């Protein structure tokens, strides 16, 4: 009943924030691994791989993340596969992140200038060697700014994990609100914490993008 915001509450929020960062990292790594596979599949010479990965991306990008979360938590448990909120949220977010990162990375790979592909072929490198030694290193540079930018999306999207009961920052706030009944104040603080986490990432991504632009200009062919 009532009460005031005290340091214990803030510590609780802090723990929630740590879980937010943790879940974001899991989604980034899990989604990153699958996303890498998706990106490669999207440019594979095998048509079935291209179509399947393309369908995967279209389906995930056409579905709200909340629905994917519900599917992973309530849906799976209804057919007998019961997951903890953490596992369900991690799996759902990873599937979501994989589709978007896959597209970003596919775009980066395809942005590597055509002459580079041709030069690598001309040196009689196998397809794997071409990818590993020539194309991917350059694609990584192109992909870094948008990937960092997407990390901001990941952090924000972890807030939805609260809806399936995972206690990250948002859920911590709701729990505190159940005893304090100061929703506007609590959510304002939560907004500030998210801002503190996301804004530096946004700035970093913008700085990378500017540097990429300048670097690209210098790399014009002789």
């Amino acid at each position, binding site marked *: 009943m009532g009460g005031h915001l005290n340091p214990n509450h803030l510590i609780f929020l802090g723990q929630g924030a740590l879980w937010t960062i943790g879940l974001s990292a899991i989604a980034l790594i899990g989604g990153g691994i699958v996303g890498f596979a998706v990106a490669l599949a999207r440019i594979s010479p095998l048509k079935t791989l291209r179509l399947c990965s393309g369908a995967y991306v279209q389906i995930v990008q056409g579905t*709200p993340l909340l629905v994917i979360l519900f599917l992973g938590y309530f849906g799976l448990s209804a057919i007998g596969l019961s997951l903890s909120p953490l596992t369900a949220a991690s799996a759902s977010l990873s599937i979501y992140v994989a589709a978007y990162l896959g597209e970003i990375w596919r775009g980066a790979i395809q942005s590597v200038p055509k002459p580079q592909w041709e030069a690598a072929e001309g040196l009689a490198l196998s397809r794997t060697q071409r990818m590993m030694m020539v194309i991917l290193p350059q694609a990584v540079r192109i992909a870094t700014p948008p990937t960092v930018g997407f990390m901001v999306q990941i952090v924000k999207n972890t807030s939805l994990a609260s809806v399936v009961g995972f206690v990250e920052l948002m859920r911590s706030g709701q729990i505190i609100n159940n005893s304090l009944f100061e929703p506007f104040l609590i*959510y304002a603080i939560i907004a500030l914490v998210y801002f503190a986490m996301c804004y530096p990432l946004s700035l970093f991504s913008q700085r990378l993008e500017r540097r990429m632009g300048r670097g690209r200009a210098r790399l014009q062919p002789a």
Partner: protein
Amino acid sequence: MGVTLDFQAVLERWPSFFSGALLTLELACFATLCGGLLGTLVAVGRGSHNRLIAASCKAYVEAIRNTPLLVQIFLVYFGLASLGLKLSAFTVAVAALTINVGAYTAEIMRAGFEAIPTGQIEAAEGLALSRLQIYWHIILLPAIEKVYPSLTSQFVLLMLASSVCSQISAEELTAVANYIQSDTYRAFETYIVVAVIYIALSLIMRAGFWGLGFVLFPRRRRLGTSL
């Protein structure tokens, strides 16, 4: 242990799905219109010579883009309630979505404005057009045409994001799904059906925007080229 899926029980509820989908589209349309207008005004404001206006616009954009939609919805919901306003969940949802998409639209429109070559603005000035006339005839419509694909994607994302409004009891598609799955105990099938409906709604929206572009941009219609 076999898994039996019973889509029949879920598909019987198609009237509820239909009304939920309709509300989702309504939310998306209202928020698109209001948010598009807001975003355009903010994009204009960012280029203002008045430093206070320019800084406020930038602050608004950064605040929205670096906080989750769920937090924004709750802030709008509880904020409006604490002001004593009794608004329907639909109105609150539209307000929150408008504020959210306004910031993203502002960034997209700003890129569009910056893509207008200064030479054309000079030519318009040389023809004695006023600042307002230049914005309207020379900057606004070409900018929208240039960034139209980004705008379309943004508004489709908005429609998908409206699912979060289920958390403040707006009776859109996701809220309907939650209700049906608790009623039929068929969570898996329900959310699969809803996912399919959302994908269909995305396609409908994209087709709608394509058609709108056809009407709005006669040059593109006639020549088939982009600006």
